[in-house]
């Protein structure tokens, strides 16, 4: 993107360096990712794309600070990530990420007052500003259980933007939505991005979503997750999804992701 090219960047904003992640289930020690390397620069929209079992969500949780790498290190602005914190705003797939005992407005305000220790009035103003941005100001005083899935995810995104985190981490936020709502949310997300150019790391298993939303895609292989490729997306050249170039890119990603299986089948 134009912005990334014009900005002089000396060090990556987010640096995931040789990261191996393991976690324990009741019976096994699972290796989710093996020596994964990638970097994200400021204002990039980095997509982690891969089939299920490639450890992309686990990787995002590690960036969020919920999980310590067994090998390697994750740095944000040069500082190692050791625990969760509001400098990395999270949006989850599950609708239950909103606190059900607080109204929409209170959910955003709570995030601000708790994490930034912002005075209440300032937090309210800021929350209203971002709720307006996602067109939910009418529902500011509703409780989450009265909202639709798409609206809940919009509140979660507004909450994240209001936090003004250094980086926003999204874990398949639109995966549980119906197709029409998902499409609308993707457009809205891009619109919000063009307003404030936040740095985004977005996890998905949909190739189309990755091409639509990303400026750069990290492709991961499954069991355990390893980086297979990194691709740049120039949406200006692709124009829309009926374009030949779009189809070629789509096929290329598909080939990279599923090469192993095809060879195996032959």
């Amino acid at each position, binding site marked *: 993107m134009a912005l990334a090219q014009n900005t002089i960047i000396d060090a990556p904003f987010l640096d995931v360096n040789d990261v191996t992640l393991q976690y324990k289930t009741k019976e096994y020690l699972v290796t989710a990712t093996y020596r994964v390397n990638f970097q994200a620069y400021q204002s990039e929209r980095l997509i982690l794309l891969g089939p299920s079992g490639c450890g992309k969500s686990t990787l995002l*949780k590690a960036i*969020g*600070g*919920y999980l310590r790498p067994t090998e390697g290190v994750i740095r944000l602005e040069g500082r190692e990530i050791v*625990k*969760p*914190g*509001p400098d*990395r*705003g*999270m949006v*989850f797939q*599950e609708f*239950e*990420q909103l*606190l*059900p*005992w607080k109204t929409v407005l209170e959910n955003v305000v*709570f*995030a601000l007052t*708790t*994490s930034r220790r912002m005075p209440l009035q300032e937090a309210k103003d800021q929350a209203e500003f971002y709720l307006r941005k996602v067109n939910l100001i009418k529902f500011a005083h509703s*409780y*989450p*259980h*009265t909202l639709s899935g798409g609206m809940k995810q919009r509140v979660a995104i507004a909450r994240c933007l209001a936090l003004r985190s250094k980086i926003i981490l999204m874990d398949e936020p639109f995966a549980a939505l119906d197709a029409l709502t998902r499409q609308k949310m993707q457009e809205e997300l891009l619109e919000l991005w063009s307003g404030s150019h936040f740095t985004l790391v977005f996890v998905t298993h949909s190739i189309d979503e990755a091409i639509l939303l990303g400026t750069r895609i990290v492709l991961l292989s499954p069991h355990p997750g390893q980086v297979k490729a990194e691709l740049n997306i120039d949406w200006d050249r692709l124009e829309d999804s009926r374009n030949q170039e779009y189809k070629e890119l789509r096929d290329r990603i598909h080939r990279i992701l599923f090469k192993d299986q095809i060879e195996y089948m032959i």
Partner: protein
Amino acid sequence: MRGKSLTLTELRTEYEREVVEPVSLTNQQRPLSFWEKLWDCGAVRKLLILILLAIIWQVYATRLNNPLMLPTFFDMSVALSQMFLSGELLAKIDASLRVLLLGYGGGIAVATILTILAIRSRLGTDLLETLTAMFNPLPAIALLPLALLWFGLGLPSIVFVLIHAVTWPIALNVYSGFTGVGSTLRMVGQNYGLSGLGFVGRILIPAAFPQILTGLKVGWAFAWRTLIASELVFGVNSGSGGLGWFIFEKKNQLEIASVFAGLFVVIVIGIIVENGLFKLIEDRTITRWGMKS
């Protein structure tokens, strides 16, 4: 044999039609009448059942004509209002509720400490699970002889037994509520930098509130039963007893209408707390939050 049979498409022709105004129904949509609304109210229907029971009681007791065994509803009402007016009953209610609140509060405190230990460490969990497995099935009243031995006659013994009655159901429910809080909500809380008691107070307690409320309700019911029962047993010697002692005393004096009045008050207080106080809390919290299961 049959002749030529039709295929389904021949049999089922297509059609389109205009919808018409339903004319045969006189009223399609109208506000419900006063009586219909009244009948929809659960409290009204339940009140009707209570009135019916009172009538059956009155009729049967009048037929029986044995005020020593079963006084009529009317006699009971008279005894009740007399005792209310003389202030005798209010003093007993006051005495009972004071003891109850002491025991209830103590039980909540012990349960809180145990649950915090349980969520802090695995050993704490084991401790809570073992203790609840041991003591939850043990009827509180069974500890009364021991309580008498340790604390003598009077308040400390009842409070001890009450704490035992309240602690386990509350601790059990609160703990299972805490462990049931989803990982997403936990991660959201941690994302805001919450940890330790702040995390417990601002994420775990509200998120587990449905179970906490259940625990408080069960604890209350246990406490109320245990209190009346233990007052019956040894209010005898402690002089200024509460409602349980009142019932026991009136029975000894053969004022059976007053015995019934005492029982009636025990029931009414139970209903007020259960359907009044707890219902109010429930409506203002978990029902409003959409967390009622």
